[in-house]
């Protein structure tokens, strides 16, 4: 059973449906006992870093997720959920993240070379670590759907795949059993479903 963390942020219906579609059972929850019992956890999220971090804290989910990650329970962050895995985010001030992956989340540079913010649409993946379990069966250059205005930096060791958007955007990251995607796998067609299936059914 996969627990999708419900902390009042994001479109959980699509994530739940996409897992169901690939044959993975999931439950949307904020209950400590359910999260502890879950085999794996997905931390979703859209919106602002500070708000989301504050909500996790208010629901006492930050400490719980840190503890479960320390036990080696597989945890996958999606979009803002991935950003929250890092040390800190600079969105409307400086906010502490979960600190599970070293790095900092900063704004995409606005419109230097005709690039728009948010980075919205389908972008190709440059896979740096094809051996990563999440990248199983994903071809170099596969397209995934991004919507974001901030991105993770100073996290070179954790980079599994990136996408070019002026800056090198951290697309897939991992540190041990903690991983994440900046794009929305649940909105990235067959490629996204394959990545979700690797997380749901793979060893880590």
């Amino acid at each position, binding site marked *: 059973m996969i627990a999708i963390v419900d902390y009042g942020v994001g*479109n959980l*219906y*699509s994530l739940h*449906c*996409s897992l*169901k*579609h690939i044959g993975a059972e999931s439950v949307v929850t904020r209950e400590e006992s359910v999260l502890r019992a879950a085999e794996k956890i997905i931390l979703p999220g*859209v*919106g*602002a870093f500070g708000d989301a971090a504050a909500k996790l804290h208010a629901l006492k989910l930050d400490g719980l997720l840190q503890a479960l990650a320390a036990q080696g329970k597989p945890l996958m962050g999606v979009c803002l959920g991935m950003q929250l895995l890092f040390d800190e985010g600079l969105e409307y001030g400086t906010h502490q993240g979960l600190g599970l992956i070293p790095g900092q989340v900063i704004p995409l540079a*606005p*419109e230097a070379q*005709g690039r*728009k*913010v*948010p*980075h*919205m*649409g*389908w*972008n*190709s993946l440059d896979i740096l670590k094809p051996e990563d379990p999440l990248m199983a069966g994903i071809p170099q250059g596969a*397209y995934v*759907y991004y*919507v*974001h*205005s901030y991105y993770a930096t100073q996290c070179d060791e954790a980079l599994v795949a990136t996408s*070019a*958007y002026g800056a090198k955007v951290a697309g897939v990251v991992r540190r041990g059993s903690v991983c994440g995607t900046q794009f*929305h796998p*649940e*909105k*990235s*067609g067959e490629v*996204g*479903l394959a990545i979700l299936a690797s997380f749901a059914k793979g060893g880590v």
Partner: protein
Amino acid sequence: MLTKRIIPCLDVRNGRVVKGVNFEGLRDVDDPVTLARFYNDSGADELVFYDITASFEGRPLFADALKRVAAEVFIPLTVGGSINTLDDFDRVLKCGADKVSVNSGAIRNPSLIEEAAKRYGDQCVVLSMDIKRVNGSFHVFAKGGREDTGLDAIQWVKYGADHGAGEVVVNSIDTDGVRGGFDLPMLTAIGDAVSLPLIASGGAGTREHFVTLFQLPRVDAGLAASIFHSREVDIRELKAYLAENGVPMRL
């Protein structure tokens, strides 16, 4: 590399797709799920569902249709039509919409843009504009293009960008339905005014029209309805053709 996007738009009334859908080989072409699945399989980059239900009674039917689509089709879904309040945002987001487009509702109550962006994030709020030339300037029209609001489109899109809209749809009333190509001067004017992702709508008749459209560097996506529904233009063939012509496409 970020690709340009091709987006079919489906009008839905009382939970069924309407208007000129003429597909052979598909059973129940008026079913939103059947069509959504077809377009997804054809390589559509996103889907837009427009709720044109006039009565309150049709809302639950739309919600049900949207839920069924979101359970089966895993690409971005935008919903528009009858979005007037935050409750309307909530209603469609809970059913699986990723983005919500506001039009007349935002003209009546401009603070809706900012309130929605604060609650759901900028990426969720699409400002859709029906624009027509009036005395040499671009006016925003309301009520499905029937009423001149007198609003200047350039001012209005700047207001939207400043208050949290995350994407813009420009529907040219002047070129809509004519099938003579997109309204390039209008798109250029709006594209120069704001730096948001820009979706072009109104005027697509042939695949060449899309090639010309994407020569405008500030246009991110092309949206159309009837030429896709009538099968005059097949999305997979269109995208291959655009790629051959140097437009970055997800194939």
